[in-house]
């Protein structure tokens, strides 16, 4: 007790009454919850400041007591990730992401953490990472209890670029179809709930023990804006960022996620980055080479976007790449078949209004033509590249951060066309 040595024990009657009242209140709260799984421990114990615990403190303490932290899986500047388990069913292993209060962020809980918690609390879907509980520890850091996804991420499986690690895993067009179906279901679910993810990439697609794919990292997510509300274009890791964001659009839609999904699909076939670059300008130039140059003809309104003058020189003699010729698409993405290539090209339409919705993609013929998507449990797994430690690496990263492999820009979020300015 923190009061003083003079202080006698609480008057018994008062203390028991508090406990009774609190126990009753807890019962009321529990009765309103749909998940009746929370264990009822002793209703009251001393609070952190020496007095009795608040009702909210009590609930928090119960959650904290339920999940026990085990060994440290990964340490980052942004968060530490621990292996943990649920004491009510000790066989259930979990990952506990403990966010760090960075000195650089002095404004309390970081906005990325708040966003991630906000959306993951709402979005419950088999292909979205499951946030099982949130609690705060004594040092006032937020702990997120997340389902353990021990098989690493999708990029580890597909990426065979210059700096690829681990043995190569081979997979087929049917496997790609299965992964894409799971990704699109997750994206469809987010969009149905009016949430844009804004950071879809291979590193954020984690693989569960049963082989299913789970969309993770909602640190950049936001709900759809009302018509007329401005949004920041400085979102999405640069290799997966759609052209409208490079052009500085402040009014954009869920179609930004569809572009990123299209790039992931392309990378699954190429097994390498598709539109990489050291600078934003390089990446944007690469986009025009692959997908063609934006113009009023193929994208009505594009010339009114803030960065359009930089990209579309008034000088008409400047070369405007027409994009990859069809035979090259067929050569590079033959694995998808003509129907698959058709889908890929529509997902990566320059004009966001021409991209299909997640729902339309799921209804696309590609998923219904042979080969059928592989059964989840038969999907190939990463050989050596996965494991809980890989999951920890993915979880502790800051959203929007590209892998530090020398090719990617480290502060990926800031769009920088500085080198363009004359």
């Amino acid at each position, binding site marked *: 007790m923190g009061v003083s040595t*003079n202080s006698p024990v609480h*008057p018994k009657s008062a203390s028991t009454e508090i406990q009774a*009242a609190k126990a009753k209140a807890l019962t009321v709260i529990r009765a309103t*919850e749909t998940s009746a799984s929370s264990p009822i421990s002793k209703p009251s114990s001393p609070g952190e400041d020496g007095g009795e615990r608040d009702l909210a403190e009590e609930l928090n303490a119960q959650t904290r007591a339920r999940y026990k932290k085990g060994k440290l899986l990964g340490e980052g500047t942004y968060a530490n990730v621990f292996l943990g388990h649920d004491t009510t069913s000790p066989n259930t292993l979990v990952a506990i992401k403990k966010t760090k209060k960075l000195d650089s962020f002095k404004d309390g809980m970081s906005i990325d953490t708040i966003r991630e918690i*906000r959306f993951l609390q709402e979005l419950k879907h088999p292909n979205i990472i499951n946030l099982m509980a949130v609690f705060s520890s004594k040092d006032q850091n937020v702990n997120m209890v997340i389902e353990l996804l021990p098989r690493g991420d999708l990029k580890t499986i597909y990426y065979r670029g210059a700096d690829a690690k681990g*043995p190569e895993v081979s997979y087929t067009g049917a496997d790609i179809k299965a992964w894409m179906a799971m990704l699109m279901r997750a994206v469809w679910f987010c969009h149905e709930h009016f949430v844009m993810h804004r950071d879809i990439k291979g590193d954020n697609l984690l693989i569960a023990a049963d082989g299913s794919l789970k969309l993770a990292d909602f640190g950049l997510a936001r709900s759809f804006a009302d018509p007329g509300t401005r949004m920041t274009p400085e979102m999405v890791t640069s290799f997966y960022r759609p052209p409208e964001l490079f052009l500085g659009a402040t009014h954009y839609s869920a179609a930004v996620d569809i572009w990123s999904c299209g790039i992931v699909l392309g990378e699954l076939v190429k097994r390498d980055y598709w539109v990489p670059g050291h600078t934003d300008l390089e990446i944007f130039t690469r986009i025009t080479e692959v997908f063609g140059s934006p113009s009023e003809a193929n994208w009505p309104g594009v010339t009114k976007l803030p960065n359009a003058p930089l990209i579309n020189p008034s000088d008409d003699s400047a070369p405007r790449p027409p994009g990859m010729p069809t035979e090259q698409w067929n050569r590079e993405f033959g694995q998808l078949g003509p129907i698959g290539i058709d889908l890929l090209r529509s997902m990566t339409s320059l004009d966001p209004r021409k991209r299909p919705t997640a729902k339309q993609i799921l209804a696309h013929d590609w998923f219904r033509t042979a080969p059928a998507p592989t059964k989840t449990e038969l999907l190939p797994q990463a050989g050596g590249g996965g494991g809980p430690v890989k999951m920890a690496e993915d979880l502790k990263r800051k959203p929007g951060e590209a892998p530090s492999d020398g090719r990617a820009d480290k502060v990926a979020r800031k769009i920088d066309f500085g080198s363009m300015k004359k």
Partner: protein
Amino acid sequence: MHLNEDAKYRTSTQFRYWNFTPDSLASLRRNTNRAAVERVKAAFDRRRKARIAADKAQNGGEVTVVSELQTKEVECLTLEEEQKLLGYYCAQCLKMGKDNFKYPANVYYMKRFYLFNSPMTYHPKDILKTALFVATKTENHHQDLDKYCGQIGGKKPTLRDDVLAPEFILTQALRFTFEVRHPFRAVLPGHSQSAVQLQQALLSLPQTSGGPEIIHEVHQMEKRITEAHSIASDRYLKNAALLTDAYFLYTPSQIWLAAHLLADEPLTLFYLDTKFTVAPGSNSSAPLKTRVISTIRSCATMISNGDTPSQPTLEERAELTRVDKKLYQCRNPDKIDLIGLNKAQKRDATMDGKLEEGLAKKRKIEREKQEKEADDFWGPPLPNTGAPG
């Protein structure tokens, strides 16, 4: 592959954690008030006893001074007084939030917070600024804290710590759920839907003489729909609906329709009619329709009861002053200095952390020693060459 409105709402934290029956809501508040009263009394009692003990020690076992503190039982706020005070501060909160958001989540952060906490424990004026600041983070209006402090103003300048110290208490009491599902999202689509349906209904009317008049009426009806929509949203949804308990008791669509009903009852009933079309000769959906309408009516009653002038009357003001004065006397003395408490808690945790660190280091050395001993016995592990299988 279709998620209907209800299915989506049922997965939300607003439904899972913050939805109540009138009885369970009242009972939760009663219990929160009772627990707070007991704690305030216990805290005063502890202080009184400490004081008497100190007196005794000073005066050789004799109690000399019997001050008011030592005899007078502290008078605590009743549940009704708490609610009056909270009503006032929530209205303040709404006013502050309106400058910053279209969707003032901060009001419901306050209302949710005070389901678990009493104003006697945490004064609403301390929580107010933090609730708004957390809402700026959750609702994409985030700004630098220094700038925020400058904007908030007030009689006394707002300091960074004033805003940050209660953040932990607040987010914990919100149970780390930050989404507030508002009825606003339904307003615009509902508006255009009723316009379309109305036109269809008019088109299906039997042709009568006087065509031009019908065009005139369509024009008028459009105006009426637009008016109903703006009254529903500006007068009711953005004000009274937020200040009442509607969000705890009804779904966003019920709240939207209730506000619309208050704005234009015949139009709303017409709109609902179009949603309950039944095959001729069958009345199977009649009981459901009756139930829906009666739910909407009870929600509308709640909202219209909350539709009071934004400025309290003189009498209300006097009553608020009285309650506030009373609160001044019965605040839980252990919880007044939130900034100090927050600092102390962080300090304790850091000390705990250091302790744990030392322990971890000791364990690591032990483990390494054991591993080395095992190696000495079993030989070192085989090199991992990834031999072909």
